[in-house]
């Protein structure tokens, strides 16, 4: 991967305002309008609001965009409060089990007060427990009122045998969905991860009941979550998260950049790490040391794979401008990456019947909001 050029594409320059909000002083109203529209769609508008607020600059924003920043900031506060409440309740529900309770992704960032916790819009809560205890945790949650969606036989088997999580649970009182995991990758995936290795290095969160993955493992989880996922359109938020994680953890641990590639290799996650570092470095100027970049590149995808994978990812990760339709190229790239995702997620003997099942028409039409 190229380590020379670090100038981001011109249409992504606005992202720098997330770290240096002073830039917004130069924006015209037209610039603001574009950013508000893009950032809202990308779930980064409240993040921008928080970074302006932290710099004491929110009152310097022109009134028209300011109300939208404030509005989204309120939405973020509300969702975050709702998430913290779920975590308080679930901690009580699962307290009697003598096994670690682990926060993943957004809940973990909030549970550590990381800079990237500000301005999130959580809609579900991701938790991890050891696989040996997941059935017990599920039944405790059911007893506390958490409900599982009704699944057909195929989907039940999918979650039970091929997935790294149990079916999402909802609660009549809570607005958040609960996703209970026993691993960060499916057990049948090509890029399999030994969950015990993750569980051996847990770190404390700010809540006694909850732990988090080791900082480096959080970075690797975030990378695998983004680069092995089915849908990469409008996922710049995840790249901004990766940038924030790497900046924060490297500043607090002098061994971070040395340990990161080694841990990725041990867990078999060198490829997503290489992709994460490539795009973070190129697009967000993440200060990855040059020798670390070289090392990560050497263990990541080979030259041939890079030649087709990087342009596809760049195509799909680049957000479409608010008034444009996605290009045909982007559609093709997204379809190819979806195929790659499925291929990586399960072996073909499972994938073909699973895809066939998923192609059947859904049984229920999606209900749209009825208000107003």
């Amino acid at each position, binding site marked *: 991967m190229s380590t020379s050029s670090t100038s981001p594409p011109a249409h992504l320059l606005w992202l720098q305002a997330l770290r240096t909000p002073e830039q917004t002083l130069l924006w015209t109203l037209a610039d603001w*309008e574009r950013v508000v*529209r893009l950032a809202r769609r990308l779930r980064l508008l409240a993040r921008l609001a928080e970074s302006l607020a932290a710099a004491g600059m929110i009152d310097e924003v022109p009134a028209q965009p300011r109300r939208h920043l*404030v509005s989204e900031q*309120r939405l973020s506060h509300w969702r975050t409060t709702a998430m913290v409440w779920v975590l308080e309740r679930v901690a009580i529900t699962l307290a009697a089990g003598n096994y670690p309770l682990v926060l993943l992704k957004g809940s973990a960032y909030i549970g550590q007060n990381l800079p990237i916790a500000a301005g999130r819009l959580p809609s579900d809560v991701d938790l991890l427990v050891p696989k040996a205890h997941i059935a017990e945790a599920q039944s405790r949650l059911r007893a506390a009122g958490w409900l599982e969606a009704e699944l057909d036989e195929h989907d039940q088997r999918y979650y039970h045998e091929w997935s790294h999580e149990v079916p999402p649970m909802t609660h009549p009182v809570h607005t958040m969905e609960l996703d209970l995991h026993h691993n960060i990758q499916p057990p049948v995936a090509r890029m399999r991860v030994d969950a015990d290795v993750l569980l051996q290095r847990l770190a404390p969160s700010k809540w006694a009941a909850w732990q988090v993955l080791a900082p480096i493992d959080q970075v690797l989880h975030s990378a695998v979550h983004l680069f092995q996922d089915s849908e990469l359109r409008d996922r710049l938020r995840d790249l901004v998260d990766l940038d924030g994680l790497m900046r924060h953890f490297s500043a607090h641990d002098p061994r971070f950049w040395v340990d990161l590639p080694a841990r990725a290799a041990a867990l078999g996650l060198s490829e997503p790490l290489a992709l994460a570092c490539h795009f973070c470095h190129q697009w967000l100027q993440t200060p990855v040391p040059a020798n670390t970049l070289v090392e990560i590149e050497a263990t990541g995808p080979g030259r041939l794979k890079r030649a087709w994978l990087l342009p596809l990812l760049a195509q799909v990760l680049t957000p479409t401008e*608010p008034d444009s339709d996605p290009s045909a190229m982007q559609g093709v790239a997204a379809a190819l990456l979806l195929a790659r995702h499925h291929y990586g997620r399960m072996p073909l003997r499972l994938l073909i019947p699973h895809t066939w099942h998923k192609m059947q028409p859904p049984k229920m039409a999606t209900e*749209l*909001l009825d*208000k*107003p």
Partner: protein
Amino acid sequence: MSAGESDITRSLADVTPGAIADALASDGLWLDLGAVTLNVRSDSPVLAVQLKAVYGHYPFIDKADWADAHIRIMQARGLRRWMRPQVVFYCDGRLAFDPFPADSPLPLLEWGANWLVAQRLNDLLLLHAGAVERDGFALLLPAIPGSGKSTLTAALSQRGWRLLSDEFGAFDPAAGVFRAMLKPVALKNASIEVIKDFTPDAVFGPVFPKTRKGRVAHLAASKVSVQRRHDTARPGAVVLPKWQAGSPTRWEPLAEHVLFPALSFNAFNYNLLGEAGFRAAIALVRQCPGWQLIYSDLDDALATINAAWPGIVERHAQVEAS
């Protein structure tokens, strides 16, 4: 809006449907609703005529530097161009909602715009209520299911009350005032004929016989309500209407503990605003007296409200003086 609105500004009624269609097809048409500005683009051949019918008094703006929501109402492509054609709703480049039939772009725009406003304006407490103004004070008609708040709001707006919104009681807690979110009043089913009989010269858009909410027609906002859509209104009173066949008009005072849930619990963003929402709702209940209005005769219902109103205004004046 930077686009200056002077006496010489042309309104949608002053321009041809072709000019509106041209704006919709290029940079869009800016609809300044008071508390919020929409930018609407479309390739629908019928939307321009429908907009002209119900947004006739709004200034015709085809260039401006800000909108709070950007909406594209586009004809569905592919097979849907020919077989039971449809229009689809895009916001900021993303598809939203189920499509509507191609001859009904206006109901799709109205419904989708309301949804976007309800999602986005958390700088305001958005009560789900009809809102009208007189003497500088707002009268709120909360949307209790089956209350017919749109019918009564429409009737008031035709008889000397200034329409703020038939859907949003948009309260600005910082300023302590209501703002207009002025759109055509969406009337459903039998209410359409009720209002047409009530004011034969009311201006209606086309009737859409089969929307998801039944038969819908839009009543245009009056010229004066459009001209005054940037004027705010102080909290005045709350009326919980209830239409009951054959009932004599009954006007019964309501206690604060009844008004509070009527205002807050069906607001769009009361929960989201947390403590700020609670404080705003409490402030409203403390300031606004409230009544239940049970009626079957619309004229008599209006007469009852109009008879009570001077006393309400007088009470507010006394509170301010003391």
